[in-house]
């Protein structure tokens, strides 16, 4: 019985993590930047959704969609304004993305305060899945995440711009020779990744806490997933996301609720000690 609960809740967690991690890996794989502001996109998605629902009275689904799009634009701007100028200076790229994350936290704190915000479920009610009582909101999140990732996968494979992204990820210079503008691709990639993270944040906002420090752990977990799955590997990130989702849920049910967050930290340490390239990654030249 507990096993079923771990399976079901782990699945939901994994799906949300996958949505966040895929974007994170994407930014690295394409723009070669480890964007420490990725958790911030997740946070902005949640807060924007809240604002649209609570202050503009919009339908939750519409709020979610608009938030995801807005966060996408924030991502693109972030690339142009913060990342692009710093691309030359190695260590500073990391610092500037982190500065973006911190700045956003403090701005959100200044506007909204530290009290967690309450967002009503988009879909109410429960359902019983494999003998486990599950809120419909979670099912919604699972379907949304799965659909988004599949859609994105198809986009990458078949759409013209998707192919451009893959080309730039493989070889920016050669892509340029083929008529693709790497700079534009970087920016839009960050935008897409940001959108996905924002979507995740907004979708899960009724269930998880919405407060100004909510960006930190998703970032660390995304990093942990990417390290586990292998940096630069999209399938690796998805697999890693579910592994983390199940591991955390199992820890919460079997050991202690508080230790959940430690799982990602332990994974980072273990993977980097044993097999730094992760499950499926290419090795990272520094």
């Amino acid at each position: 019985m507990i096993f079923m609960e771990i399976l079901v809740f782990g699945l939901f967690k994994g799906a949300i993590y996958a949505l966040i991690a895929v974007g994170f890996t994407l930014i690295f794989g394409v723009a070669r930047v480890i964007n420490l502001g990725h958790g911030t996109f997740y946070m902005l998605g949640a807060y924007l959704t809240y604002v649209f629902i609570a202050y503009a009275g919009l339908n939750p689904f519409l709020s979610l969609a608009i938030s995801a799009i807005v966060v996408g634009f924030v991502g693109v701007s972030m690339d142009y304004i913060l990342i692009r100028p710093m691309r030359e200076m190695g260590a500073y790229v990391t610092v500037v993305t982190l500065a973006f994350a911190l700045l956003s936290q403090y701005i959100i704190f200044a506007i909204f305060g530290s009290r967690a915000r309450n967002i009503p479920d988009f879909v109410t009610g429960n359902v019983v899945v494999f003998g486990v009582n599950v809120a419909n909101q979670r099912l919604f999140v699972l379907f949304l995440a799965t659909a988004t990732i599949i859609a994105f996968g198809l986009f990458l494979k078949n759409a013209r711009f998707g192919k451009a992204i893959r080309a730039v990820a493989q070889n920016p210079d050669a892509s340029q020779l083929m008529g693709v503008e790497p700079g534009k691709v970087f920016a839009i990639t960050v935008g897409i990744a940001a959108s996905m993270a924002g979507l995740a944040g907004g979708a899960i906002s009724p269930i998880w806490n919405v407060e100004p420090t909510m960006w930190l752990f998703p970032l660390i977990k995304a990093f942990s997933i990417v390290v586990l799955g292998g940096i630069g590997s999209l399938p690796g990130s998805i697999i890693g996301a579910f592994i983390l989702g199940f591991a955390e849920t199992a820890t919460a049910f079997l050991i202690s609720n508080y230790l959940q967050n430690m799982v990602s930290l332990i994974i980072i340490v273990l993977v980097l000690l044993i097999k730094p390239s992760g499950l499926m990654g290419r090795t990272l030249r520094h």
Partner: protein
Amino acid sequence: MLRNIPKIGLVFFGVFALLPFFADSPYILGVITMASLYAVWAMSWDIFSGYTGEINFGYAFFIGTAAFAGAIFGTRLGLTPWLSITIGALTATFLALITGILTLRLRGPYFTIITMSINIAFSELALVLWKWTGGEEGISGIEPLTDGPASDYYVTLIFSFVVFVVLVILSRSKHGQILIAIRENEDAAEASGINTIIYRVLMFGLSAFIAGIGGGLHIHIQMHASHDLLSLSLSTMILIMAIFGGMGTIIGPMFGAYGLSILSELLRNLAEYRMLIYTGILVLTIFYAPNGIFLRMKTLFSAILSKRKG
């Protein structure tokens, strides 16, 4: 060797040494005492991160573990402050070396994230072990360092000065050059026969040790070991002070720390916005003065001076 020390640094310390004769309110002395500790932390952060180029984002780990180790041993075994400070610093150094086995292999964002993670992990751990650490409240009733704000002031000022001199000399010595060589091109440095691992480990340990002493001084001056000494906020503030002042210069972080500490007090009324302002300063610094304000000011002054002579 002694002429390596920037005269402006000496002047600065000279001025502050005389300060208590002009302004002896405990409040002002307290502000500068704290600023001296921040300066120590910023400088010792810099000797590792500024010179190896690896941004340590969890510096409070060294400070906090030293503080709590010292506090716990000190209060439970009734040790004198100097002994507990030493134990604290050694604990921090020991932990630095242990975690260094993992963290020092990593580069760039990996190093940043793992130092951040370790900081957070220990911060949470301290809450879990609240029976020992006092949880959110921390540990109170710690023996005072000296018998008054003025002597506390001088102890920290002198310590800050000593750290300044030692680290400046170290950074401008052959060893500093080697660190810079490692930062710029590790493979070339290795090929030149430099044992990069030993250098990283030693500097990391030194960085932790000095931070630990600072932590120990802090708890005895405040007579309280606060959980904030393990916080990511503290790590962030120190990093901002160092980058604002100018990474990789030692003197830059020193000025950055004193400057931002004093600024922070002046903006006391905007306390809630403090971190926001600090982070804003960080972003502005990265864009408009990436080498820090100290070097910026230096180039500005030389430009002005040479125009005069011109």
